[in-house]
């Protein structure tokens, strides 16, 4: 379980970072999305991995902390997902605007940095 999760985070992060350094804006957007998936998994892992344990405490029975998963990382991940969703949407709009205004999908707005006006 741990090794699978660790590998998954590692592979997604590597792909994300590689895409982040590519010159096309679409690659940038995908790279950032992949990175945010990896980070969300990472946050979840930092709350310790638990299988088959509920995060919500039932008031009726006496509470034993060992029987529950840590709810906080799950709440954090939710917030992080919403925020990265919003910023990625904004980034996509910006990519389209940049493509329309500069006529290229290069991140610097020109095909080769040397030929910049």
């Amino acid at each position, binding site marked *: 379980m741990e090794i699978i999760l660790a590998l998954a985070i590692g592979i997604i992060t590597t792909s994300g970072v590689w895409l*982040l350094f590519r010159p096309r*804006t679409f690659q*940038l957007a995908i790279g*950032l999305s992949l*990175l*945010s998936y990896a*980070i969300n998994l*990472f*946050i979840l892992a*930092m*709350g*310790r991995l638990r299988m088959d344990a509920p995060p919500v405490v039932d008031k009726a029975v006496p509470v034993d902390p060992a029987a529950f998963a840590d709810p*906080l*990382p799950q709440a*954090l991940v939710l*917030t*992080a997902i919403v*925020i*990265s969703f*919003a*910023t*990625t949407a*904004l*980034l996509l709009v*910006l*990519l389209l*605007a*940049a493509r329309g*205004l*500069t006529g290229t999908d290069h*991140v*610097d*707005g020109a095909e080769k940095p040397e030929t910049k006006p």
Partner: protein
Amino acid sequence: MPPAAHLLIAPILLPLFAAALMLVLNERRRWLKRAISLSTLAALMAVAIALLIAMAAPGSTPVAYRLGDWPAPFAITLVVDRLSALLLLLAASIGLCSSFYAIARWDRAGPRFHALFLLLLMGVNGAFLTGDLFNLFVFFEVMLAASYGLALHGAGVERTKASLHYVAINIATSLLFLVGIALIYATTGTLNMADLSQRIPMLGGEDLVLLESGAAILSIAFFVKAGMWPLGFWLTPTYAAAAAPVAATFAIMSKVGIYAIIRLSALAFGPASGLAAGFANEWLITGGLATMAFGTIGMLAASRLTGIAGSYILISSGTLLVAIGAGSPFVLTGALFYLVSSTLGTCAFYLLIEPVERAADPDGGAVPSQAEPAFEDDEPGRLAEDESDDEDEIGIVIPATIALLGSAFIICALLMAGLPPLPGFLAKFAIIDGLLRALPEMAATGWITLAAILISGLATLIAMTRAGINLLWVPVDRPQAHLRVVEAVPIGVVLALCLALVIGAGPALGYMKAAATSLYDPVRYTDAVLNPAHQPEERTR
């Protein structure tokens, strides 16, 4: 809980509600929106002044506000102490002046300027007030999301290109922020900053290594915001492309990163935090010195006023980082004074750039051009030509506008270069005084820092003098430049605030000294958050 205690959450709720209200209103009701925006900002300023007065009382303690009255380490807490109150006031004054300036023309350049502007201030205020790391992240994101919109305000190719880089860098940085938070949570089991400061001294071994890596990754996010070399290359182009009032408000945004570093280094890695104490101080000093060097070179190389302003932000960030890294309350006192004066100076300068460049533009500045350099390297040739043109006149009448702009420019130059009698000088003097006291511990680094502070000031003076001569003294055959009252008033107000800072330097420095001392004594802060029983107003609702 007395109603006055709820004042603490007003700096977040007021702009939120006002911005929401503005989204409902039609974009054509411009004056109504302006009125809402300005009155909200005025109210924010009043709240900030009230909090500042409460905090300025001798022996005052930080006040915590628990949302929904949940018990402290679990609930979302807002905390105001001397530092937060001071920065709230700074943010409100800069916001009010920039927003007023925007009425001249910029709020018509695109939709929803005022709503985004208020949301930006909400994020900034929230970041200054929040008592836990995750909400710091959330408020950072609120601030950034609004700043993306504002950086793009007015559209255009230059802005889109600069914003693309800005947005991409900040999204990546936010992810690092999350990694840092996750690592800190994994090792300490808490994200409440007061709780953190109590748990960190108990850590050791592997956990300590993990915690320090978490904090280091977290700091990268703050360093990017503050523009530390080599993480600050995005700053100058983005700020240069942004509309004038937006860039002026962004001046406070780079200080949010500095604030977070001050808060964390004092609370979590202060002298009382056991093995983790001061683990990043050498990094802060090295990074700060590199940033100052980069800013100084950029300052001398800048061919446009926006370049000078961007480099000045870098220099001031560098100075502040070094001052925090020195880890002495005396240096921090000066640093806080420097923070306030340099933010006001940057704000005034960004507001001033537009009218000055318009006045220097031979077309009379119908359209503020972002792409053209304000002056070129072949300036002497142009100078000679212009002089021959003007030969048939006997002397040149200095128009009132140029006189006004020129004096504002000179004040800005003195402020930024740190020359007397303006607060820039007092701030540098206070930092240097603190450094001299801390010299026994800092040895060679102290002297290098002293030299860097003085050299960067000299470079600022050289760059500003050169730009001022070129833009304001060179006679150009141009129609009468015009400066609108709406533009002149906010610049005047910001500069007047700086003058007030000089006149009230004694009490101001006293307040900042108290703020710096209490930062290095986090017990009161943790007490206010974790043991609210000590406080008179305990019960809510």
